[in-house]
């Protein structure tokens, strides 16, 4: 390692401080807004720190009193969990057999490449027929309909991750088990799947976050509390006539909490997932 001059060391630490400030300042401000009294947020000059800390908006948004702002928020929170959760389970259920098949039989790999290439398609190119089909099936404004549509985003991604995961499990141990008389499905169930559990978990987390983050289809295909997800609810708050900016910020903090916690706790797994894409191409 090169020995650094004092000046270089100072510059590096200054740059690190700047980077930390750039990353943290907006997030910190979102949180400060959520705990500031409404009057503080419209004060001029802006005070930057609450005159007294006020967590009441969290209670407001998480209350389940009928017809309150909280009830609408909680309903959208539950819808987001349902839609992302159902789509994740279905995507994993599709991805395990398909990922294993491509991993062990490279000659069918082109079909997975084709599935992954659909990532290029802008959702607007699918939206009109999907809208008409969901309307025809009576699945507009339904968590099931939305979860079904989310599979177009989640399933290619999870299948690709599962395929890379199975690639890392030597097929020789499967063959050994089968020579010992175990059938294919027994082998997969008692041998391969347990070994693949870490990658199943990572894929599921990624898929859930993708579903949690989705906005475009949710905006188009939902219209009220029966199916409206958190992202649409927040966009409504931000674009509507809500006069308390702190309430919008609080909704943002609550929606950001699950993915941010997952991101911090699962850092290693997420980065290896991200960069395996970067390295393998």
């Amino acid at each position, binding site marked *: *390692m090169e020995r650094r001059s004092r000046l270089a060391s100072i510059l*590096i*630490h200054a*740059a*690190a401080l700047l980077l*930390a400030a750039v*990353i943290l300042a*907006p*997030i910190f*401000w*979102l949180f400060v807004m959520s705990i500031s009294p409404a009057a503080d947020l419209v004060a*001029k*000059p802006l005070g930057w720190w609450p005159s007294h800390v006020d967590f009441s908006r969290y209670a407001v948004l998480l209350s389940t009193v009928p017809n309150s702002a909280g009830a609408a928020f909680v309903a959208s929170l539950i819808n987001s969990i349902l839609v992302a959760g159902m789509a994740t389970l279905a995507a994993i*259920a599709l991805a395990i057999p*398909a990922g294993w098949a491509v991993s*062990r*039989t490279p*000659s*069918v790999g082109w079909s997975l490449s084709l599935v992954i290439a*659909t*990532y*290029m*398609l802008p959702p*607007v*190119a*699918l*939206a*009109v*027929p*999907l*809208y*008409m089909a969901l*309307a025809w099936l009576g699945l507009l404004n339904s968590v099931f309909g939305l979860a079904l549509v989310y*599979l*177009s985003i989640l*399933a290619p991604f999870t299948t690709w991750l599962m395929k890379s995961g199975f690639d890392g499990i030597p097929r020789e141990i499967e063959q050994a088990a089968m020579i010992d008389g175990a059938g294919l499905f027994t082998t997969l169930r008692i041998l391969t799947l347990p070994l693949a559990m870490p990658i199943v978990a990572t894929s599921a987390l990624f898929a859930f*976050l993708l579903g949690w*983050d989705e*906005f*475009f289809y949710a905006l188009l295909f939902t219209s009220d509390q029966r199916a409206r997800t958190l*992202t649409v609810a*927040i*966009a409504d*708050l*931000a*674009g509507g006539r809500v006069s308390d900016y702190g309430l*919008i*910020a609080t909704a*943002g903090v609550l*929606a*950001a909490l699950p993915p941010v916690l997952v*991101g*911090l706790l699962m*850092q290693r797994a997420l*980065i290896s997932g*991200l960069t395996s*894409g*970067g*390295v393998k*191409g």
Partner: protein
Amino acid sequence: MSSTWMTTRAWLLMLPLLAIMIAVIGWPMADTVRLSFTDAKLVGLGGRFVGFDNYVKMLTSGNFQRALYATTWFAVVSVTAEMVIGVLAALLLNQRFYGRAVLRALLILPWALPTVVNATLWRLIYNPEYGALNAALTQIGLLDSYRSWLGEPGTAMTALILADCWKNFPLVALIALAALQAVPRDITSAALVDGAGPFARFRFVVLPYLAGPLMVALVLRTIEAFKVFDIIWVMTRGGPANSTRTLSILVYQEAFSFQRAGSGASLALVVTLIVTVLAVGYGLLVRRAAGSAA
């Protein structure tokens, strides 16, 4: 086991996935192609065949040309900035300093923030009457009176790009950092012993390791940027004076606000074509970059 049986078995195992993909991607795509040659409305009866009318009308319209320009501007500026800042951040995080592990962990925060939350957060920061940006710039004396950053055509797009960069440069940085950590230390020390300066070391020793992963990041970010919808919808809805109306926003308005499914479909297909051409072009570049790095 015969290879025919292996292949049949593989297809059987893939069948559920492929069936769902045909239902939610393949069929809608095909139907969009059909609709693009009709004057169908979003609700009501099927519409008549009108040949290439939609395409001609749309491609020659000023709306399309302005949206194409806005999209290209958004994509080129935001992706370039994300790549440059991302690589600089990765080079920094590859140095030794106090708190490096913490800073690396922080990098995941903007990336983890949902896109809609990010857009909402920046919308609040840019607020013309009470926003933090106006307050900060006035308090340090850079600004005399509050401005409407998202309300003026001159600043709205730049404000959007800034918000997009903040969320997405960490992805580039994470990918670049992983690539930097794969550079063998003895090669960099050897170059140092041979008297290579910092720029020569970056150009000839480090960059070959970065090229492949960075190309992939570039492809992913460019495709995303050309498809951009969420952040713009939440922050400006394409305004003011349509200055931030990108192609996806235009398709949305045409197909869903004005309910002209046919011409919306033709517009959506042109967007698809542009993204495909970009992705394939980049794909060839990636292959070349990967070849030269190996």
